[in-house]
């Protein structure tokens, strides 16, 4: 059995998902405020690297990277409900692209695995 990243379609799958996902996040009133004033060109690259990680693809993120990247947002009130919303949008994105439920759950589990680092706990 090939790994998750290969089953999803690798880099092409990330490219297909990234703008769809980012639009959903920006349109979601629960979390959109965290993206106010953010440079969209830089943000799309960061979304891409988040999706690559969640899809089980190559990445070298450390817990410290995740903590530092979100410290400012935690200070602004980022909490579990916002992480839930992000994962929900990720699930919708994958379903829109026709990804089977088994893989949707695997991606959600990887995204969920960095929750404590993201929330700096």
């Amino acid at each position, binding site marked *: 059995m090939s790994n998750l990243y290969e089953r999803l379609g690798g*880099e092409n799958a990330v490219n297909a998902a990234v*703008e769809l996902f980012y639009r959903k996040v920006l*349109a979601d009133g629960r979390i959109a405020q965290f993206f106010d004033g953010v440079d969209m*060109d*830089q943000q799309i690259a960061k979304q*891409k690297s988040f999706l*690559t990680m969640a899809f089980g693809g190559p*990445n070298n993120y450390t817990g410290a*990277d995740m903590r530092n990247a979100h410290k400012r947002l935690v200070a602004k009130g980022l909490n579990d409900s916002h992480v839930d919303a992000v994962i929900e949008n990720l699930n919708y994105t994958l379903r829109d692209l026709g990804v089977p439920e088994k893989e949707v759950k695997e991606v959600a589990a990887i995204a969920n695995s960095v929750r404590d680092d993201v929330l700096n706990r």
Partner: protein
Amino acid sequence: MLKFEDRSVELRPGETVLEALERAGIDAPSSCRSGNCQTCLHRAVEGVPPPDSQVGLTQGQKALGFFLPCVCLPTSPLTITRPDNVGARRDAVIRAIEPLAPDVIRLRVDADDFAYRPGQFLELVADGDLRRHYSLASHPEDDPFLEMHIRLHENGRMSRRLGEFKPGDRLHVAGPSGTCFYEGVHEEQRLLLIGAGTGLAPLYGVLRDALKRGHLGPIRLYHGARSRDGLYLDEELKALSRTRAHVDYRPCLLDPNAPAGGDVAATALHAEQDVKDSAIFLCGGENLVKRLKRDFFMRGASMKNIRSDAFTPSG
């Protein structure tokens, strides 16, 4: 084999440029280290980075030699620099300085060997620490000078200094910078250029470059201004759109009584509902650029098709 600016950097077999920079003690930020997050972005000023190290970058960035050191295994000699390094200052001489509108001047300077793409910007250095960024409206193949459109601010230091300058005076330029130029556009793609105030300068450069390269698709240019005087290339652009059937110039005078706000952003957002396949260029104040970028993205435009340059006023 590998140089960081003037300094030789040892590159071991199988080592990435990022690893070599770190081993040499050069401060190089990084995060994902797998070619996605673009935190480690650098630029090659000599040599060609391998295509694998440019995946995910815009066509404009690729054309300028930008690459990702964390996934770069060079196959030929490279000299690299930080992405924001504008290079050495060069001598420039003022060729012409004249008003385009009551608060806008056109500055033309001569500078040797200043390679650029129309729509990029340079750093203009008047004396010592007095420097500002201005976009280039000229075309390197047609114009022997660099042309800038500059808004004058009543109490701005540079504005006052520019008021004293006359042809023959010397100053300095550095750069160019910026990726808001005609690259990665299909010749039949719809081109949407939207700007306000002197945001017209880079768009005018892009428009001329597109026409020079034989762009075939429809081109629509919106220029917003607070008063009629501010539509400072009105006659020229009207004449151009009369002779080129695929060029549509839309001057937008600020109308405070219009229902949707009446500025160029509101006008363009109302008229441009289908932007999925357009190549979009946005130039002007930060609010205008951010609003249009977000709204066009949400309407289905891909980020790689949106090029922008946000101006920050500094007098």
